[in-house]
């Protein structure tokens, strides 16, 4: 199964991922950074397993992230 990897600490809170994939992302009101919903986090890296049908959209978002902190594996 594919995964989204989010290196959250470098997020600048542009909100692009949230606009494009609202089911997976939300904005933290606490620190103004994007949060990968239901992900498992360790040492600033947050990981979420995704179905194949979501891979292309997730890759598009990863490519559009202005600080390149989203990866899809």
């Amino acid at each position, binding site marked *: 199964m594919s995964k989204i990897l989010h290196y959250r600490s*470098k*997020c*600048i*809170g*542009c*909100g*692009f991922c949230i606009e494009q994939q609202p089911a997976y992302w939300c*904005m*933290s*009101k*606490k*620190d*103004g*950074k994007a949060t990968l919903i239901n992900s498992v986090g360790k040492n600033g890296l947050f990981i979420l397993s995704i179905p194949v049908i979501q891979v292309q959209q997730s890759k598009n978002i990863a490519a*559009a*992230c*202005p*600080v390149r902190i989203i990866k899809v594996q």
Partner: protein
Amino acid sequence: MPLQLINTNVEILAPVGSYESLQAAINAGANSIYFGVEQLNMRTRSSRSFEISDIKKVVSICKVNGLKAYLTLNTVMYEHDMQLLKSILKEAKNEGIHAVIAADFSVIEYCSQLGIPLHISTQANVSNIESVKFFSRYADVVVLARELTLQQIDSISKEIKRQQIKGPAGALIKIELFVHGALCMAISGKCYLSLHTQNASANRGACVQNCRRQYIVKDIEHEQELLIDNEYIMSPKDLCTIDILDQLIASGVDVLKIEGRSKGAEYVQIVTTCYREALASIRNGTYSADKIINWKLAMSKVYNRGFWEGYFLGRRLGEWTNNSGSAALEKKVYVGKGSKYYSKIGIGEFEIESGSIKMGDMLMITGPACGMVKERMSKLRVNGIETNVAVKGDKISFPFATKVTANNKLYKIVNSNNE
């Protein structure tokens, strides 16, 4: 310039993007520093070493060393930034920050509510006395737009005095000006190139510096390429005002601001030192062409894209660089990092991780405790034994004044054309 016309309280404000740069600014004799935390400042992409928890330490180091500490919070702010903004301001207030530098009205409003002294960022593009008057309800210092001429600055400065425009602290509004460092190709940083090409907003501190690349200009209809002398058609040279500093001060500038929060400690230390010396020379009447040549030479050895005097003398178009990156005459080559410090005998030990060094090499050491130190290798000991050359894997030791830790980086200084 007659000495009686010189404002002797002019402040030198240095950029700080790391603890190394902070110590470098202290070493150089800056009067104040500015820094950003988290993602709400204009160097979010290029300099992200400080978090909210660092405010306490930075302010504390500044107070111990007699410097003022200013916090930049000058990006465009969105609704979802408000909580983080409040958390940052609360911490800044608790730690006694000397001022916050802002452009967005949310920051201005919160600072006003919390009683935090405010400086208006150059991002606000203040270019006339009415704007200064407007912001004087909230701020004690206004950073003027970088695109003004000396006459315009002089006129604003005189009007502040004539109209007695005072800030919340009760003193006349101070004028701050960028005097050295990188310039944006767009007016007051309001650029959309980075957002357009990489979805990365420069106005959120994420500029990818499209303007620093080479471009061709082509007529699509006839497929003809225009012949241009310089392919870096949008990349401005760096601002350098050390040779017109007397005129800038005569125009009423109170704070000389140096750009470069994402640059190294050596840049901060050398540039700040040069401007401090130039200011001292203006004060004591020894400011001269010979000194200016030497300062410019010293500053041309650290990161720069070539120098010009900006828009202050009335030039309407920028002067463009012809380099992809720095045009510095010298460059630093990473050699290794600190490993141990023998405090009783004052000896530092460094581990060579890349390349080699030999007797006579010029070394540069950066670190949170030393800032930037340059010295020529005159005595080289590898693993305790005197030698002439040290290579990767060797541990070298030599006398060093401040504590050495793994945060200390060791570089070799080489001429840029000696690849």
